[in-house]
């Protein structure tokens, strides 16, 4: 009995995480068109129609683009909190009422042996929240799209076996970049995204004995690089006394290519 996962894609162009146990399979966000989502599932040799549910983090288009299409086509249950349902209603189209489920923040839903826990993050959306998957004492955390990582969030996510952690931008690259100032300010704000350095500092606070893998996710195409994110996070962790490769490994994620299906 194990929990397996694949980060189907991660970045500002779209996000999707696939998680499965022996009995159930879950999708967190569907930030691509229906066709692209089908292609991503094809790449990990999994069937969308078998999903037990789609779990929505927030209503931004890079997280919900394919929700409506997939829900209607495969008759899948969709879970989101009330405010997110309201905020995304016009963008996902009509989803039959019997497929719409409310999953409020700071609550847990159980699917067989898998417990899915939701927790709030700080982002400029209606009521953004992310998820922790618990299974047989193991823990997988997804946390992206947050301007900062609070002590409360750290308490919820600490000592996970697997972290999928936002490492959105390098502050200097963002400042040097061509984005308009209001966008830069938004990204850097408490309701924006976590930088490489801030991600590393937060990771340093939450890694524990159980932690084996950390994936750097939601990397900005314009204001970050895979090598840079890994280098920056690894060096900051090293300065906190945490050596990558000793207890845990550090990986990057891709905006188009799924990670291989891996057991937690």
């Amino acid at each position, binding site marked *: 009995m194990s929990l397996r996962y694949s980060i189907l894609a991660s970045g500002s162009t779209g996000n999707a995480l696939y998680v499965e146990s022996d009995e159930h399979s879950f999708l967190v966000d569907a930030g691509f068109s229906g066709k692209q989502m089908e292609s991503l599932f094809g790449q990990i040799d999994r069937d969308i129609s078998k999903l037990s549910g789609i779990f929505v983090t927030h209503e931004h288009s890079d997280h919900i683009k394919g929700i409506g299409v997939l829900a209607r086509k495969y008759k899948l249950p969709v879970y989101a909190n009330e405010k997110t349902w309201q905020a995304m209603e016009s963008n996902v189209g009509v989803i039959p009422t019997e497929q719409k489920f409310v999953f409020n923040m700071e609550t847990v839903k159980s699917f067989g042996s898998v417990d899915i826990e939701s927790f709030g993050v700080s982002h400029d959306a209606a009521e953004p929240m992310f998820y922790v998957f618990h299974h047989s004492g193991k823990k997988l955390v997804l946390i992206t799209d947050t301007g900062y990582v609070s002590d409360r969030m750290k308490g919820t996510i600490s000592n996970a076996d697997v972290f999928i952690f936002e490492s959105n931008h*390098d502050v*200097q*690259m963002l400042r*040097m*970049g*061509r984005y308009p100032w209001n966008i830069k300010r938004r990204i850097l704000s408490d309701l924006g995204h976590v930088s490489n350095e801030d991600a590393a500092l937060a990771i340093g606070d939450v890694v524990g004995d159980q932690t084996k893998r950390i994936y750097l996710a939601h990397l900005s195409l314009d204001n970050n*690089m*895979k*090598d*840079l994110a890994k*280098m*920056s996070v690894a*060096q*900051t962790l*090293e*300065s906190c006394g945490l050596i990558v490769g000793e207890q845990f490994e550090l990986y990057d994620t891709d905006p188009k290519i799924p990670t291989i299906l891996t057991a937690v």
Partner: protein
Amino acid sequence: MDWSKIKTIFIITFLILDVYLLFQFMKIRDANKYEVITETSLEDKLKADEIKIDVELPKAAIKNQYLSAQPGKFSKSDAAKLKGQKVVINESGTTITADLENPIQLSSKFEPASLADFLKEKILYGEDYQFWEKDDEKKTITYFQQYDNFPLYQNMNGMIIFTLNEDNQIMKYQQTHIEGIEKLTAKEDVLLQPMKAIETLYQKGVLKPKSKITKVELGYSTLIQLAASQVLAPTWRLVVDDKENLYVNAFEGQIIEFGSNENLGAE
């Protein structure tokens, strides 16, 4: 008065007025039709401000990429190689300070070529550096490290500063050296044309009227300083009137201002 006459006078009057207005309308429309909205080109603006480009600008698209690098560490065995020098390596191992037992006499008009042999034979990795400037006030001669023949501008982790005495002799030097320079991203990207850099400098008022661009060169500058390494970005260097250096990030087009309080060996 006869009503039908009044009506006729009104009709004729308004007919004349309509013809006049139509004539005026056609006249204005024709005038507008041939009015070409011209925006002054950058070249014309520079010409108007008497800014001259006294150098051939590369026109072909240039591809380049970010680099990563680390401050190199000197060892005791490195120091032992330096004969005729009293060598001290700082605690972190990144800076050599060397006093020359036999000072090098320089001619009154310094030529970088006169130090070429000394660099090659008496200084660790001496061939990695290229002359930057001689400061007569501070009595220093500065060299910066290069990568693939591109200078690493103002890089405190890759430089040599020679100190001169009153007799124009090199007495000592301090050296840092960057190592492990690697291309950071797999994919190369096309750099902004130098003309775009000139445009940015002009628009921001950094390029002053009546100035002359005397040199345009591509190198690298430190974009990101991490805990143990740095990221270098392709950078256009424009020399104005043979004395002022202006730098523009060759990917993003932002003007780079180097801090004036950076010290040799800063990590």
